[in-house]
């Protein structure tokens, strides 16, 4: 490949693709350390109460067992102890569960003991021998009951400007007095992330005050901070390694009790402990998408102008920690509506704490909003796309300022063309192929185009390659590949000469991979670091070769082992520049988005179109076609970006048609605990997803023009499918998932 071929916008294969498909890529549970031990967690079988006795004798005496740790004998974790400086009021928003801290049970399958043994099998065997007795207390896991005591999140109480606070423009609940209106409730059940790789950690105390964690995490820096605090260690005494992460979808954005438990286990045994949750424990010991109730009231004029929207939401959280997400954000900015009310509440239940799941609150909110848009269009006898166009926002009605960029109209047009929207009939239940009823639906998604701060280092190596390092993670989107492309273009080098290393807390700092912000953030830092490196090389070359002293850093080129200036004979071999150790190393911080952030509203947008077939007799739903169009700014890698869109769309199929965790409220315990009962889409459920990118840069977000893809890939898919099911059958399903029982 010629060095001046543009990499940005290409379909470069994943730089780590070969390592992944050959098994050479090492995931957190694959590190074999000397003296390694294995940890298995025992979970509670009640949802609320106290442990009155814990019999660990049999487990302790089982072969190979090194330790059985519980609240009875756990070492005191410094971060769990009262400091004496606590405010008199309990901390607002709560705090994470302190594992093995006391005898209290706060949710079913809460870790109550850790067995550490010399093999996994022996640990597992001993774990089943641990016997607990409880004093039960009355628990509440039912959302309908819990919603009666729904409350405003503390963050909103403290700050009335918080996005979680009530929002009002125009008249409150103005839809109620209108002639043309709808009022409906929508429900999303609890869903689980279930990445392919289960949560796992290998915890190793390299010295009494030095901790190394091979951990599945979306943020090495956040994980380091959490456990440095928990063990009262300087941050640089904790090393977090997450070179490869086998999917996460938000699940590894927080630290969880099993991580604390493994660290405690390693402390007690003085040996490294490897702990991987079982698939069953993935239902209970880590977060999930919260069960959410929503209600939308909407009114419009006869010619299809929305006059008012009220959108209320109650999300599930745990009894010990408030989890909030932006369920209502898009309602405030997506459509023109002079009167708009949103109210966000939480219901605290005796369950574990939820966590963002791909598309997070916006995916939940879009199910209600985009279903309601479809219901309103139906009432008005309008094409739902036409209805959306009549209420299109040319500027942000929430903040009253321009969009940085918005090409949603282009997405509508292209998506309609690709799905064959013209075949859609206004009257539901009219299209039929044999026993299959056909329908078309659309759903819109949006997510903030955020850019935070990040550090990246860049170093010219003696072999002429450039090594970049950053603590960011890659949970699957292909971060390393995109960063390689950005660096290649900025340095004018072919991608083979770039090496981008990530996933270690020892590397220059960056935030967690989440909220579609990595390319926006780290991408900018990579570009900055590469330019800084060029400048450094120019400075190093200047004393011997004056032409470089006056050259601009952008003009400097790296050509065949030399620093060169195009149009100039000046040439300095790399060897000359690398005489001083670390001379050609730069470490750059790119700041978070600045002034533009207050002048413009920045969002990625997507629209999804679905063609579904519903069997008239059996209610089976097949998604025959799914078209996803995205206004996500500059696309760095067309192939991995399309991957993101397709994966997100399939996640949306799961949300729409099958994902559903069932809890039995009498026991406060999940009944669905394996993949035979908790369904995620299989290949046969996923049609070939057609993806279209507007691919227009947004230079207000960063100098690359990227806006972010990961979340908008899922947001809006579920309502597109639900709306298509309505169009096919005339049946409106407002409680996901749309299983055959709801359609026969």
């Amino acid at each position, binding site marked *: 490949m010629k060095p001046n071929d543009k990499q940005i916008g290409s379909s470069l294969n994943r730089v780590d693709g070969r390592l992944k498909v050959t098994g050479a890529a090492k995931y957190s549970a694959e590190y074999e350390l000397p003296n390694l031990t294995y940890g298995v967690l025992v979970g509670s079988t009640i949802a609320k109460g106290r442990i009155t006795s814990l019999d660990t004798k049999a487990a302790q005496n089982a072969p190979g067992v090194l330790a059985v740790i519980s609240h009875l004998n756990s070492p005191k974790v410094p971060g769990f102890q009262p400091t004496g400086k606590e405010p008199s009021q309990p901390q607002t928003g709560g705090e994470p569960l302190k594992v093995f801290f006391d005898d209290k049970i706060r949710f079913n399958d809460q870790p109550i003991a850790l067995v550490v043994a010399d093999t996994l099998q022996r640990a597992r065997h001993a774990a089943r021998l641990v016997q607990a007795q409880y004093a039960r207390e009355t628990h509440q896991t039912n959302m309908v009951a819990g919603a009666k005591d729904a409350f405003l999140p503390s963050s909103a109480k403290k700050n009335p400007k918080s996005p979680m606070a009530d929002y009002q423009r125009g008249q409150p609940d103005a839809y109620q007095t209108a002639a043309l209106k709808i009022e409906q409730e929508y429900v999303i059940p609890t869903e689980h992330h279930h990445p392919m790789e289960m949560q796992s950690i290998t915890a190793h105390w390299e010295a009494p005050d030095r901790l190394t964690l091979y951990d599945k995490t979306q943020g090495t820096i956040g994980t380091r901070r959490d456990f440095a605090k928990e063990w009262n260690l300087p941050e640089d005494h904790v090393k977090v390694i997450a070179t490869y992460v086998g999917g996460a979808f938000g699940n590894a954005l927080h630290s969880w009790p099993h991580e604390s438990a493994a660290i405690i286990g390693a402390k007690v045994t003085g040996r490294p402990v490897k702990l991987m949750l079982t698939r069953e424990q993935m239902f209970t010991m880590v977060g999930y998408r919260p069960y959410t109730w929503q209600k939308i009231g909407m009114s419009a004029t006869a010619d299809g102008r929305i006059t008012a929207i009220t959108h209320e939401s109650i999300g599930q959280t745990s009894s010990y920690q408030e989890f909030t997400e932006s369920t209502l954000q898009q309602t405030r900015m997506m459509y023109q509506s002079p009167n708009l009310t949103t109210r966000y509440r939480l219901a605290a239940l005796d369950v574990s704490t939820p966590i963002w799941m791909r598309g997070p609150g916006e995916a939940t909110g879009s199910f209600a909003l985009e279903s309601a848009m479809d219901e309103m269009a139906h009432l008005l006898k309008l094409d739902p796309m036409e209805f959306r166009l009549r209420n299109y926002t040319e500027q942000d009605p929430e903040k009253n300022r321009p969009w940085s960029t918005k090409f949603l109209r282009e997405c509508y047009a292209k998506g309609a063309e690709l799905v064959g929207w013209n075949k859609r009939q206004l009257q539901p239940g009219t299209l039929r192929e044999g026993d299959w009823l056909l329908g078309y639906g659309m759903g819109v998604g949006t997510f903030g185009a955020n850019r935070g701060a990040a550090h990246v280092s860049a170093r010219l190596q003696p072999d002429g390659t450039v090594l970049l390092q950053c603590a960011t993670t890659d949970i699957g989107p292909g971060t390393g590949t995109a960063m390689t492309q950005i660096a290649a273009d900025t340095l004018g080098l072919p991608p083979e000469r770039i090496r981008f290393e990530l996933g270690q807390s020892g590397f220059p700092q960056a935030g967690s991979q989440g909220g579609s912000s990595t390319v926006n953030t780290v991408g900018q830092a990579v570009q900055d670091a590469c330019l800084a490196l060029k400048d450094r090389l120019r400075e190093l070359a200047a004393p011997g070769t004056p032409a470089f002293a006056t050259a601009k850093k952008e003009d400097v080129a790296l050509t065949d082992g030399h620093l060169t200036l195009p149009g100039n004979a000046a040439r300095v071999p790399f060897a000359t520049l690398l005489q001083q150790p670390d001379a050609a190393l730069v470490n750059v911080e790119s700041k978070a988005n600045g002034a533009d952030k207050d002048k413009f509203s920045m969002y990625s947008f997507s629209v999804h179109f679905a063609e579904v077939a519903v069997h008239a007799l059996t209610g089976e739903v097949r998604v025959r076609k799914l078209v996803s169009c995205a206004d996500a700014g500059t696309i760095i890698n067309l192939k991995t970006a399309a991957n993101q869109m397709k994966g997100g769309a399939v996640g949306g199929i799961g949300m729409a048609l099958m994902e559903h965790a069932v809890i039995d409220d009498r026991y406060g315990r999940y*009944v669905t605990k394996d993949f035979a009962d908790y369904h995620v889409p*299989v290949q046969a459920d996923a049609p070939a997803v057609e993806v279209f990118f507007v691919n227009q840069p947004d230079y207000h977000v960063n100098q690359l023009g990227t806006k972010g893809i990961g979340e908008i890939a899922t947001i809006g898919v579920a309502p597109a499918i639900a709306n298509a099911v309505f169009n096919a059958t005339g049946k409106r399903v407002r409680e996901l998932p749309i299983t*055959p029982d709801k359609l026969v």
Partner: protein
Amino acid sequence: MNDFSYTQAASAKEATGIIKEKPQAAYIAGGTTLLDMMKANLLEPPQLVDLNQLPFKGIEQTSDGLRIGAIERMSTVGEHPLVVQQFPAVSQALLLAASPQLRNMASIGGNILQRTRCGYFRDAAFPCNKRVPGSGCPAIAGDHHNLAILGVSDSCIATAYPGDLSVALAAFDAVLTLENQKGKQRRVPITEFYLLPGKTPQRENVLESGELIVAVTIPGAAHARRSTYLKVRERSSYAYALASAAVGLDVQNGTIRTARVALGGVGAQPWRSREAEKVLTGAPATEATFLAAAAAALQGAQPLEHNRFKVELAQNTLVRALQQVA
């Protein structure tokens, strides 16, 4: 999972002999049911007796019908030309089940003995009459959306057999060959093999302790050659049936001469419906007949709140299956 020892049995006698001595030991064929249960600590056999070396093999034509060895794999049987030609419904029931990986491991005998997917049964933290007799049935007032509506009792409403193969076997009068600890063989029609839950849901079939399934024989018939297996589930593949139907019709000049009907996903056992067959036999092969047969098949349904949809779903599934073979 508990500690256990492992023995490869070279003969049926050796296999049954081990169970005679250690009644808590368990047979293992493909292991796809057994190991899942062991991993969940639901079964804790001290010893596993591997049946894979036993001569319970072969798919061959006999005077009684097609004889299939109990140790044959689901994939082999499902794809076998004799099965495909003579019993399309049996082939489809096998190939619509589980996943290719599971079908490559799982045996016919093991399939017939697979256990319920009732979520309470599979988690020892819950009570369950089938697992711990007398402890109660939380499913009745709890999650039962994919449990049975036919043949259920106050003690248990599980689809004790949640799978597919036995539904097709029940429709086409298959007969199991069993061998007990004394080396004696007996033949039991599959429709008499499973037991309804009644007050003893822990007893699921007529197998004596240690008795082996040796083979299954399916008699050939015109209605079996013109048969189909239709499975309705919550996703397109790799899921248990919400409702399924194995049907076979011998239709001549528009009149049904013989009919076979069995339903899956709705019965406490694979649900052969002689009521539906009675309606079909001698009647014209029309939609009206099929609707009447479907109504007859579900006559005795005892649905609860979350599985009420199955009454209509099963009827529609049956009608659709009959339309396909008519």
